[in-house]
């Protein structure tokens, strides 16, 4: 599939160079790319799902490696894998009534411990799970394949040999691919329309004469606010500028052109102003499985200030931003330091910053992170395209969108070959 490879490489380059910004654009393009990967993958007669999963996984691995901080890529890859599994499962159940999920074997195993990037917690979770459903107390006592036996046997072959026992495979294979692509189209559709769905809920949350604070710029937030405005609600928006990227200026401009009462403030004035604010509405970079949020830098401060004044802190996030991983040390591991030039004029400080000239450590360091981690206890509400949710319920949304086996997209080194 040479064409696809070109596309993939192209996309990887863009990700590496951070040419694609915003999780929405990224996830849409990822989904589209994976769609072409799937449509070009030749499916063998047996184990079609396995082949697709392998193909997607191989590409997904590269994509994730290209920009590990853009969690949306990984999310979409996992969603696609989940879609394949689900479609396969529904076909299998349709084909052979009574053939349950029980025979789906398990691709990951405990021997992953040498391979421990951010994701490896998930590996083991996957080990514990043997079906598409996450493990639960219900299944604790039920038969599970002996995990000791599984380890290396099925890894490269994919994990659905068991399922492919069904009768007429040739028709199924075509059908599977077709179904998967259908589902993918739906996914892409969902991603593109997610802010509309989110914005529809705006009137339920924004009332007359409210004062709303936001930081930085998010398309979802813009649509959300405008949706409320269209419903003839008049309210005021404080926009913190979000230095050093000053995306807030952009948002302020958009809001002003759409006729909203907008006040632009500096980030440092957030604490001063929050006491007069009724609600903080912000976008997110990613929502983690514990309900924590990876958000543009500065939002932790805003969330703390909101908590202090008991102002609801509402996060708008499309479901493509739900990430099934638990953050550990997110400030460091899921962050990206941007160029110091956004903060300081190089010319002025060139003598203090010495870049690799080999002398002793320079006196001046500049820290310019991209993201903040907002812990779940500071978030009052998530508004997603499926409605409003508490941070404590995010685990469940995630269980709906991802299957446990896919938490780790990266394969073990031996199988990667």
């Amino acid at each position: 599939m040479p064409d696809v490879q070109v596309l993939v490489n192209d996309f990887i380059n863009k990700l590496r160079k951070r040419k694609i910004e915003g999780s929405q654009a990224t996830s849409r393009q990822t989904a589209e790319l994976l769609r072409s990967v799937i449509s070009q993958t030749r499916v063998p007669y047996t184990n079609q799902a396995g082949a697709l999963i392998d193909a997607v996984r191989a590409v997904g691995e590269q994509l994730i490696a290209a920009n590990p901080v853009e969690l949306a890529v990984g999310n979409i890859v996992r969603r696609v894998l989940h879609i394949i599994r689900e479609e396969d499962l529904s076909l299998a159940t349709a084909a052979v009534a009574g053939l349950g999920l029980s025979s789906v074997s398990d691709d990951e195993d405990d021997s992953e411990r040498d391979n421990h990037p951010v994701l490896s917690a998930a590996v083991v979770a996957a080990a514990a799970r043997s079906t598409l459903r996450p493990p639960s107390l219900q299944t604790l006592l039920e038969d599970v394949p002996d995990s000791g036996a599984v380890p290396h046997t099925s890894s490269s072959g994919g994990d659905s040999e068991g399922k492919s026992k069904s009768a007429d495979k040739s028709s199924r294979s075509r059908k599977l691919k077709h179904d998967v692509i259908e589902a993918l189209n739906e996914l892409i559709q969902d991603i593109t329309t997610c802010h509309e769905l989110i914005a529809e809920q705006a009137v339920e949350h924004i009332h007359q004469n409210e004062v709303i604070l936001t930081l930085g710029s998010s398309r979802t937030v813009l649509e959300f606010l405008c949706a409320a405005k269209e419903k003839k609600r008049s309210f005021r928006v404080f926009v913190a500028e979000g230095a050093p990227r000053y995306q807030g200026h952009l948002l302020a401009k958009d809001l002003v052109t759409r006729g909203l009462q907008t006040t632009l403030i500096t980030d440092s004035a957030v604490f001063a102003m929050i006491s007069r604010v009724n609600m903080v509405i912000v976008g997110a970079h990613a929502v983690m499985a514990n309900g924590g949020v990876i958000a543009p830098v500065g939002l932790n401060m805003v969330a703390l200030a909101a908590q202090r004044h008991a102002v609801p802190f509402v996060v708008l996030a499309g479901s493509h931003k739900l990430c099934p991983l638990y953050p550990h040390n997110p400030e460091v591991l899921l962050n990206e330091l941007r160029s110091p030039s956004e903060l300081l004029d190089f010319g002025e400080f060139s003598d203090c910053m010495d870049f690799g000239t080999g002398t002793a450590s320079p006196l001046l360091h500049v820290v310019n992170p991209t993201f903040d981690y907002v812990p779940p206890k500071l978030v009052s509400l998530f508004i997603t395209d499926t409605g409003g949710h508490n941070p404590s319920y995010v685990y469940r949304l995630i269980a709906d969108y991802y299957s446990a086996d896919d938490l780790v997209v990266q394969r073990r080194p031996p199988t990667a070959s």
Partner: protein
Amino acid sequence: MWWRSASFILDHRLQEDPPNDIASSSKEPDTLSKLSPPQTHSSFMAAADPFNPIPNPKISAYYQTRAAHTAVVTSDWLAQAQAAVGHHPDDSPAPQTQLLASPSASGKSFCVINEFNNWRKQPDLAEAVAAIRALAAVIRASEATTMMELEIELKKASDSLKSWDTTSISLTAGCDLFMRYVTRTSALEYEDFNSARSRLIERAEKFGEISCKARRIIAMLSQDFIFDGCTILVHGFSRVVLEVLKTAAQNKKLFRVFCTEGRPDRTGLRFSNELAKLDVPVKLLIDSAVAYTMDEVDMVFVGADGVVESGGIINMMGTYQIALVAHSMNKPVYVAAESYKFARLYPLDQKDMAPALRPIDFGVPIPSKVEVERSARDYTPPQYLTLLFTDLGVLTPSVVSDELIQLYL
């Protein structure tokens, strides 16, 4: 004075014990699960006499198990232990074993409580596992001919087991879990009675394995949360937490552990001992030094006796205050607990659960007018817990209720 003797006995026991385990397990690695309860090390315990399961009603059975398994160093225990050292452990239990093994034959005299008591004496066996095995033994001994009868019989057994020791949460949880499996598993309905029965027995016996596997999974799950250079505060002796730290040490992670002393059981001493064996740097704290050291701590790791509906945990006395301190200083509190410890309980406060009493030795005589708080554990509400590591994955406290609702409603 008795300090020295305590450690002496501890060491002695440590030397003595492993061979025992190995002996019993190598003797009958398979029969262990199929046949009768293993030989007991009952001489360690006051509860050794199977026909008088609660010899000292002031000490909860739950606590006795704990004491036996975590080598609690109490004067009580010392007395028993000293007595035990006197004779070879293998000698005395033998007749008892016979006695206990017989119930399957002599049907009527079978007593689920005795069965359970014998199982729980195995140091590596969780209480829930013991409970489920005891219930399996009930099935084996049962003369029922239909599923219905069997269920009724099991129900009776599990009820008596539960009422025998109301203080043990994992006992209750284990019984409930198994009963739920028996009554709700659809597969059983399609099979004839005999195969269903043997399937039940087989699953029950596998449960020990499930429990071990659960510990391993939890250990693996928690690895990412232990980063190099971190300091972990541990309270109580939890096999799961030990497994977690062991795995971390094997993974060459660099970390140090603060162990609370765990008065009056001194569980922390035993725990630090175990860690020292793994070459993990350990520091022992007296229980009251928790707040003082919390600044240096990066995370708190505790086990749990039971995880309740709210997502909170019931655990060894002191967990609550450690969680409070950690919460107020913004340190994460991680709980490692196997999912079969999830129990349909919902304590509202500390007094809202059956207290598990324990003896407390203050080293000096306490005047009879002075009251002593002897409860062995406390309840930690979910808002003070950060994450639960279970074999179902890493969970926020809110998931516990979800799982329980799915299982029991």
